[in-house]
C-alpha cells in the first residue's frame, strides 16, 4: 500500500498518550531514527497517570539499560506480603528475599516523576513531546488511519500508536474496542500518605532503599470483589483499594467509604499513624485479562498498553506497566518495519500481534486467562482469611485445654467455616491452575 505517496505527512508516527506505553513506543521509534510526535493531554507527562505503583521493571532494561539506577524510582521491592485481612485478625504470608534486589525485579514508582523522566528520554532521542494536547479524533483516508485531530488542528502521519490508557477513546473511535463490561473493570481509589523515611523503614522492617509491597484480600472491600494494596515509597506510602465495578454497583457500597474503611482498619491504621495525606486519586484498571484483548491493529493504527486491555490482576500482583512496556517494544518494532517497507496495511502491522503473543506479555495474558473468573468468586475474598485465622488461633491460643495436632486444629476450624470440602479442593485446584 503506498497511499501515502504524494500526500504530505507531519511525522512518521504520532503516539497518543505519554504513559509508560506511549513513552516506550516513542523512545524506541525515535531511537530507530523515525520522526515521532508524542502527544499528551496533561500539561506535563505523568500528570494524569496513576497506579498502585509496583513496577516489575526488568523489561525496561531492554529499553533503558540501568533503568532501576537511572530512573526516578522510589524503593526496590524486596518484601512481598500477601495479607488475609479479617475484622479482628489477619494472616500474612510475608516473603522477603535479597535475590529480588539483584538484579532488581520490581521498584515502587510515583508516576508523575517516572513519566517526566521517560518523556525526557524521548526528547533526548529527538522525539517531539507535546503536552497539553488532547486528541479528539482520528483522521481517516480510504479506511486507513492517517493522522489525528484536536479541535481545529490536524496532524498527518503514517502510523498512529494509541497509548491512551484504560479509557482509550482512540481505540473506541477506531472501532477496536466497545464499551467494556463492568466485571472487566475496577476502580482504584488511592491515597499517598507522607511519612518520615526512618518511620517507614522501621514500620515495614526495611533497610535503606528497600521496599515492601502488600497485597491485601478479605475485609478491606466489605465483600466487593477486589482488594487492597499498600506499597512503600521513599517518604510516603501508596495505599488504596481496587473495586470491581459490577460488584461496586450491585452491593450498594460507597467507593470512598471503602477506601477510608481500609485505611482505618485496625491492622492497617498503625502503619499510617502520624502520616499526612499528600494526594487522593482514582483511576480505572482493566481486570478482564485475556478476554479484554481484541484486535490491536487497523490500517495505520496500533494499540498498546492498557488501551489494548493489557493488565493482569492475579490477586497476588497487579501488573500493567510492565505489560505496557512489553507491548510498546513489540509495537515499535512492527511499526518500524512497516515504515521501512512503506506498507501500513494490517498484513505488516499484524507482526505486532504475533510477536506480542510470542513474548512474555502474550504468554502471561494466556497463562492467567482463568484468573479473573477465579477471583470473581467471593470465597477468595471472604472465607479463607477467617479460616486461616481460626487455624492459627487454635495453634497459638493456649487456653489450658489440651493441645491437638495441627491437622486436627485445622480440621475443626474448617468444619465451623462456611466452606465445604468440595470448595476447598475445587478452589485449591483452580487457584493452582488459574494463578
Amino acid at each position, binding site marked *: 500500500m503506498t497511499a501515502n505517496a504524494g500526500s504530505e505527512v507531519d511525522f512518521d508516527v504520532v503516539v497518543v498518550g505519554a504513559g509508560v506505553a506511549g513513552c516506550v513506543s516513542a523512545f524506541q521509534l525515535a531511537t530507530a531514527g523515525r520522526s515521532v510526535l508524542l502527544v499528551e493531554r496533561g500539561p506535563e507527562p505523568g500528570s*494524569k497517570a496513576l497506579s498502585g505503583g509496583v513496577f516489575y521493571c526488568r523489561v525496561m532494561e531492554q529499553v533503558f539499560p540501568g533503568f532501576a539506577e537511572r530512573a526516578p524510582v522510589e524503593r526496590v521491592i524486596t518484601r512481598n506480603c500477601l495479607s488475609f485481612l479479617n475484622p479482628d485478625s489477619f494472616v500474612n504470608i510475608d516473603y522477603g528475599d535479597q535475590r529480588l534486589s539483584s538484579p532488581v525485579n520490581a521498584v515502587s514508582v510515583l508516576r508523575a516523576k517516572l513519566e517526566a523522566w521517560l518523556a525526557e528520554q524521548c526528547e533526548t532521542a529527538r522525539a517531539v513531546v507535546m503536552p497539553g494536547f488532547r486528541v479528539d479524533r482520528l483522521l481517516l483516508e480510504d479506511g486507513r488511519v492517517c493522522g489525528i485531530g484536536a479541535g481545529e488542528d490536524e496532524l498527518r502521519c503514517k502510523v498512529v500508536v494509541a497509548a491512551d490508557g484504560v479509557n482509550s477513546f482512540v481505540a473506541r473511535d477506531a472501532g477496536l474496542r466497545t464499551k467494556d463490561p463492568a466485571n472487566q473493570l475496577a476502580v482504584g481509589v488511592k491515597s499517598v500518605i507522607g511519612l518520615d523515611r526512618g518511620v517507614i523503614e522501621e514500620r515495614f522492617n526495611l533497610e535503606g532503599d528497600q521496599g515492601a509491597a502488600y497485597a491485601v484480600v478479605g475485609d478491606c472491600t466489605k465483600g466487593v470483589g477486589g482488594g487492597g494494596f499498600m506499597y512503600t515509597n521513599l517518604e510516603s506510602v501508596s495505599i488504596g483499594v481496587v473495586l470491581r465495578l459490577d460488584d461496586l454497583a450491585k452491593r450498594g457500597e*460507597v467507593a470512598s467509604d471503602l477506601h477510608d474503611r481500609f485505611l482505618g482498619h485496625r491492622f492497617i491504621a498503625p502503619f*499510617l499513624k502520624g502520616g499526612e495525606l499528600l*494526594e487522593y486519586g482514582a483511576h480505572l484498571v482493566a481486570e478482564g485479562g485475556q478476554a479484554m484483548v481484541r484486535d490491536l491493529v487497523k490500517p495505520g493504527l496500533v494499540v498498546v498498553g492498557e488501551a489494548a486491555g493489557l493488565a493482569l490482576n492475579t490477586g497476588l500482583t497487579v501488573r500493567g506497566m510492565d505489560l505496557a512496556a512489553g507491548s510498546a517494544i513489540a509495537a515499535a518494532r512492527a511499526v518500524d518495519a512497516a515504515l521501512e517497507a512503506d506498507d501500513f496495511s494490517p498484513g505488516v502491522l499484524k507482526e505486532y500481534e504475533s510477536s506480542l503473543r510470542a513474548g512474555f506479555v502474550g504468554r502471561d495474558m494466556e497463562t492467567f486467562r482463568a484468573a479473573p473468573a477465579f477471583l470473581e468468586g467471593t470465597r477468595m475474598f471472604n472465607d479463607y482469611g477467617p479460616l486461616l485465622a481460626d487455624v492459627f488461633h487454635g495453634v497459638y491460643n493456649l487456653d489450658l485445654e489440651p493441645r491437638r495436632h495441627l491437622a486436627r486444629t485445622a480440621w475443626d476450624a474448617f468444619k465451623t467455616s462456611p466452606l465445604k470440602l468440595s470448595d476447598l479442593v475445587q478452589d485449591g485446584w483452580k487457584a493452582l491452575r488459574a494463578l
Partner: protein
Amino acid sequence: MNLGTIAERLARNRYELDGAPHIEVDQQAARASGAGPLLERICPAHVYAVAEDGSVSLAWAACLECGTCLALAPPGVLTWRYPAGGTGVLYRMG
C-alpha cells in the same frame, strides 16, 4: 490518622480549571433510570449529588477523571469526555 473530608482531600490536589464542564447529565434520563444514587455512590470524588427534587447536581471541577461513572451510567445519562488539553486534575505523585 485523619484523612479529612473528600472535599478537604481534593483541595490538596492540584487542578487546572480554565476548561468548560467535561461532564453533562441528561436529567430526564437520570430520573427515568434512577442513576442518580448510583453515581453519587460510585464516584470517588463525590462529584454527583442527588437533590431533593431528584435532579443530579454535578461538581465537575472535582473530577479525578477515572471514568467509573462513564463505565457504570446507564446509556444516555452521561456525556463524558476528558477535560480540554492541559486542564483538569494534575497528579503530583500518581
